[in-house]
């Protein structure tokens, strides 16, 4: 142990709220401490994928990474996202074409939502059960979701008689999750846990990295191509009509061999209104409803369900499914000059975003965990971020008249111009071999204004804790606040 007088700290004084401590060139009127790694995560996109990923990361890592700052950036929030327009029926495409990973994520989502049903809070989440019919014009192999849903069976003769023109199909019970209710619930859940929302269109990953984000989660759906070109990502335009027909209690989805999925009529009752659709136009970027599609949807639906003739039409809506050959759910480390940006992509869920959201969010959190593991090694921690920190060596001294213990620390300070968003200074322990780890983290007030009305107040200051397994401090030496 050695001390360097001009760089030493007296811990006891720095723990008093109003005391001033000098270490090097930084002053700390307040001190907040935590253990081990801290991290700032920026999620881009506030549809179901973005919000669910933020949730999974929080759930799995808020006690491991401390403090864990999660921010969500989006230009559109509920009820204006693609997720809000979807009817909300959990149902993947009929066949997964060997994509067993996606089937597994779909299953995880189904099981998760089923477990939510045990609580009355499921209403606030917009989750409920509904049964219904999948209709085909000729015999077809059983769908990949047959063992995931409840009560899956073939349709009986009498049931098929109810749907002229269709002579094969299945009946099962599935879960519904309505975006217009689920997304506000998720946002509320996240806000209560300190997640901050920013209404802002992000133009590049670099933009966020420069403000200090350690990890970026890209959940930008159909417009992911604007952040990083992706020729596999295309819009699958859909249009729906919402009607008032409360006597309908089953969903009816038709499948055609010639048409692609969703281009065949479907009727999906929701908690208040019934969603009628059957449009899938690849590479059509129009978000406006049009009369041609409306007529087609309406006529097809009335033929399928004659009672709709008496239904009151409430509204039309069009949205762009983020279609891709398969979901892009992977890490990418992007080099931008001297900067290295950690990105987790989670987009391209086509027409099954709600169906797959939880499984993908959990997987994205797992990928995030890989980054956390990597950064738990403090020297490695500085590696990719060293351009933001200038390291100094500081020793933290605990002592009384009769003894002194020094803990070598590194001191880092964020470089770069002040920008909207939190800035901070921090210390992290140097050397992976240290038995005690003391991380002192300070969060300053956000600089600059921000147009978002969803911004919450900065996080709560936390009481410092010290983990010093070997040392038994004398009473005067250690003042815990």
């Amino acid at each position, binding site marked *: 142990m050695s001390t360097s007088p001009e760089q030493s700290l007296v811990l006891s004084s720095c723990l008093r709220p109003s005391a001033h401590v000098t270490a090097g060139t930084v002053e700390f009127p307040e001190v907040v401490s935590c253990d081990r790694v801290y991290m700032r995560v920026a999620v881009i996109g506030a549809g179901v994928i973005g919000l669910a990923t933020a949730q999974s990361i929080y759930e799995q890592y808020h006690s491991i990474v401390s403090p864990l700052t999660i921010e969500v950036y989006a230009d559109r929030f509920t009820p204006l996202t693609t997720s809000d327009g979807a009817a909300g029926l959990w149902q993947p495409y009929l066949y997964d074409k060997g994509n067993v990973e996606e089937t597994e994520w779909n299953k995880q989502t189904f099981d998760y939502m089923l477990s939510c049903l045990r609580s009355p809070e499921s209403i606030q989440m917009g989750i409920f059960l509904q049964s219904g019919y999948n209709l085909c014009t000729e015999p077809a192999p059983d769908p990949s979701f047959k063992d995931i849903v409840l009560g899956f069976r073939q349709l009986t003769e009498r049931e098929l008689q109810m749907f002229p023109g269709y002579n094969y199909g299945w009946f099962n*019970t599935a879960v519904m999750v309505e975006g217009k209710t689920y997304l506000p619930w998720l946002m509320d859940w996240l806000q209560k846990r300190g997640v901050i929302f920013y209404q802002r269109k992000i133009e590049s990953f670099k933009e966020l990295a420069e403000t200090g984000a350690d990890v970026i989660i890209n959940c930008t759906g159909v417009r992911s191509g604007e952040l990083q070109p992706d020729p596999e990502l295309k819009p699958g335009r859909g249009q729906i009509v919402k009607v008032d027909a409360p006597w309908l209690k089953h969903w009816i989805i038709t499948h055609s061999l010639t048409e692609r999925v969703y281009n065949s009529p479907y009727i999906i009752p929701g908690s208040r209104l019934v969603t009628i659709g059957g449009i899938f136009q690849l590479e059509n970027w129009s978000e406006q409803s049009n009369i041609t599609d409306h007529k087609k949807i309406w006529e097809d639906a009335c033929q399928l369900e004659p009672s709709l003739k008496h239904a009151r039409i409430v509204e039309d809506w069009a949205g762009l499914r983020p279609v891709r050959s398969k979901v892009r759910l992977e890490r990418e480390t992007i080099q931008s000059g001297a900067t290295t940006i950690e990105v987790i992509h989670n987009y391209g869920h086509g027409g099954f975003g709600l169906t797959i959201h939880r499984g993908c969010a959990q997987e994205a959190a797992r990928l995030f965990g890989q980054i956390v593991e990597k950064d738990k090694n403090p020297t490695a921690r500085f590696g990719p971020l060293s351009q933001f920190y200038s390291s100094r060596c500081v020793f933290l001294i605990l002592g009384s008249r009769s003894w002194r213990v020094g803990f070598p620390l590194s001191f880092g300070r964020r470089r770069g111009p002040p920008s909207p968003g939190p800035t901070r200074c921090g210390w992290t322990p140097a050397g992976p071999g240290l038995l005690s780890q003391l991380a002192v983290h300070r969060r300053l007030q956000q600089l600059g204004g921000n147009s978002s009305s969803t911004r919450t107040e900065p996080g709560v200051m936390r009481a410092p804790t010290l983990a010093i397994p070997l040392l038994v401090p004398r009473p005067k030496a250690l003042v815990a606040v």
Partner: protein
Amino acid sequence: MKSVRVVVVGAGVIGFSTAVCIAEALPFCSVTLLAEKFSPDTTSDGAAGILFAAEFPDIPLERQKRWFKYSFDHLLAIAQSKHSPEAGVMLSSGWQLFRDIPADKKPFWSEFVIGFRVMTDSELKRFPDHTFGQAFTTIKCECSSYLPWLEKSFRKAGGLVEQRKLNSLEELINSYDIIINCSGLGSKTLVGDNKVYPVRGQVLKVEAPWLKHFIRDGDGKTYIYPGIHSVTVGGTRQEGDWRLQADEGDTKGILERCSRLEPSISKAKVLSKWVGLRPSRTNPRVEKELVRLQSRMVPVVHNYGHGGWGVTLAWGTALDALGLVRQCLHETRLQANL
């Protein structure tokens, strides 16, 4: 040929169904429906109207099967048509649950509902208090809409409607040739049938539009029936109980038991409470008899005592009653020819 004057007593689902059957099938009859209470004040109005049968001990099974099947098929055709919302008739899927495995796993009506099967283990997981269950699709027929719809059909077929309280069948003999008695619990006094007794049922209507399935406990005392504008939750089966006012204890019990089956019920707003007296009898009385009224022998066709299965059996028993009316007419003609 002189028009035969038929009067149907009772404006519940049995009365109107029978009246429509007769008016549509026998155009040479003039049919009048006469009752003290009309929708929405009949027993039928409060019933959830889920088609579901019980087995009566003394009626041949074949006849009971016919009753159920004809009713179901008739209503299924309406449910599948554009008249569904106006008539208040819709398809309803769901589950019937049993705490203990029942003796009869496949009741006689299972072949007449749609897609009847035993519940899977994963479906039963949602109901930890129950060990066995049946899943199927049946019909829900809401009488608050169905009765006015039947009345429309009745009038279209030339039927006449009169509101009047009847104290005795004798009041009818000067105006009518055949009497059809569909007076439900009223038969106790109107025709002196002591075998009719009330089984009190209390239900609540709650606002829970996210519920899409019916859930029923096999004991018939706890059930959740989502309807067009509200969800009917219940219930009670109190034999010999004539109270028509809602009972607080019953309300609490219903909400408790239903919330156990379906947790989200605890968050549903209670819209209204209702009590009905099921016109119960060991077996429904669907038969004809000649009744001495003053000096005449008058043919009376009885169609009452359906208990909690009125909506379920209405059309089937109405068709039976029509057959009995035809028999009466035939016998009357034979008499006239003598």
